[in-house]
């Protein structure tokens, strides 16, 4: 994957350091990354967030800088030395970016977390209530009934950010779990990764869906097209997945993600068929109607429920992760839907018009 195009001071600092204005540089050659300058800029934005003047989840530049830092842990970039993954200066920058995002997420999800903590029933039941009662923007209903082909393709592009690495952010958590939750997470991931069949890996199924609607299936192909709020959906998973401290929140996030998937996926598949797109486009969503009806039970009952049984003190963190999933997804969905309702593209760079094969 090519490194993305910078969208402001923070992403310029990070991407500029990695690419050294086009030539490959190694971390030990640095001087390229001015940590203090980044730190000052992040703190300026954090202060603006505190008084409501800025929204880190919609900050294209900040989210792109963070996404670029995280991507070094997944597949990296063409021409960028892999040593950057553990470069202390870059990690210091990542930490600054993460701190402002995590603080914002905690602040904005408090009410849902408190309500779920006070609710009755076992944890799984309360998490089903939380996901069922959370009023997000009606993206799935819009795709099902109203979306045109151009909007459907934009939806696929937004979705590609997390789906082409589907299940990977949760795999970081496996070594941090023990006993029942670990066994169940692996059982679930085995399904996500195709149960031993390469063609059934969910990432691959989504690639097939992209291709069938005339889009590029290459990992990271649309990174310059998506807004900060969509990058934030991906970044939140990486944030929770990469920190052992946040393992319970990562599993809460996963549970809410699975529990808010099968019903919407049925609607997405309905919209795809309404638009007469090839069956291969709908196949990914059909698979998820069924798979996620299993996964939500496993994730909420055996993984989240099991974690809280092992350590009752982690319940708040599990619920924080769940609320975060729903909230971040709602912010991204809202921005997408608002653009469509105003008859404009929801992408930062609209797609070239293409005829579906």
């Amino acid at each position, binding site marked *: 994957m090519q490194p993305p195009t910078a969208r402001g001071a923070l992403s310029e600092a990070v991407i500029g350091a990695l690419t050294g204005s086009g030539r490959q540089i190694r971390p030990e050659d640095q001087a390229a990354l001015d940590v203090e300058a980044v730190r000052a800029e992040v703190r300026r934005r954090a202060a603006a967030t505190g008084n409501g003047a800025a929204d880190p989840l919609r900050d294209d530049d900040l989210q792109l800088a963070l996404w670029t830092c995280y991507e070094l842990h997944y597949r990296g970039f063409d021409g960028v030395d892999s040593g950057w993954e553990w470069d202390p200066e870059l990690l210091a920058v990542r930490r600054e970016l993460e701190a402002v995002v995590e603080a914002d997420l905690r602040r904005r999800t408090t009410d849902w977390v408190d309500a779920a903590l006070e609710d009755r029933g076992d944890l799984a039941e309360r998490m089903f209530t939380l996901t069922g009662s959370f009023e997000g923007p009606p993206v799935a209903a819009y795709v099902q009934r109203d979306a045109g082909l151009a909007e459907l393709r934009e939806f696929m592009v937004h979705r590609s950010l997390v789906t082409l690495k589907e299940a990977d952010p949760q795999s970081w958590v496996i070594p941090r779990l023990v006993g029942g939750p670990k066994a169940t997470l692996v*059982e679930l991931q085995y*399904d996500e990764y195709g*149960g031993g069949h390469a063609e059934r890996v969910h990432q691959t199924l989504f690639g097939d869906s992209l291709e069938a609607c005339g889009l590029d299936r290459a990992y990271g192909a649309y990174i310059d097209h998506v807004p900060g709020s969509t990058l934030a959906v991906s970044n939140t998973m990486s944030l929770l997945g990469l920190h052992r401290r946040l393992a319970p929140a990562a599993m809460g996030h996963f549970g809410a993600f699975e529990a808010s998937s099968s*019903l919407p996926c049925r609607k997405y598949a309905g919209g795809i068929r309404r638009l007469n797109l090839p069956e291969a486009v709908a196949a990914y969503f059909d698979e998820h109607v*069924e*798979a*996620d*009806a*299993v996964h939500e*039970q496993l994730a909420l009952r055996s993984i989240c429920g099991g974690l809280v049984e092992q350590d009752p003190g982690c319940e708040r963190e599990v619920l924080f992760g769940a609320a975060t999933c729903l909230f971040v997804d709602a912010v991204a969905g809202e921005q997408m839907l608002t653009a469509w309702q105003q008859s404009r593209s929801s992408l930062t760079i609209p797609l070239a018009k293409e005829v579906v094969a």
Partner: protein
Amino acid sequence: MSAPRDRSHLTVVRDPARGPVEVTPCPDGPLLVRGAETVRDEEGDAHEVTRPVVAVCACGKSQRKPWCDGTHKVIPKR
């Protein structure tokens, strides 16, 4: 808790490679089935099990029977 439901239509065929079949009912939700090779629906048609655990519809409202499709979440609890 919901009342017990009639699951007499459900036939599960064991996958010999996977040990005993294990069925776990979820409150107000599907039956989780591990270790099955096929699940037969009400019409007697066998459906191949292609994932480590499958969720079999227990509310009767799924549009992808015998599999659960999450519909139980939007119907009033019994």
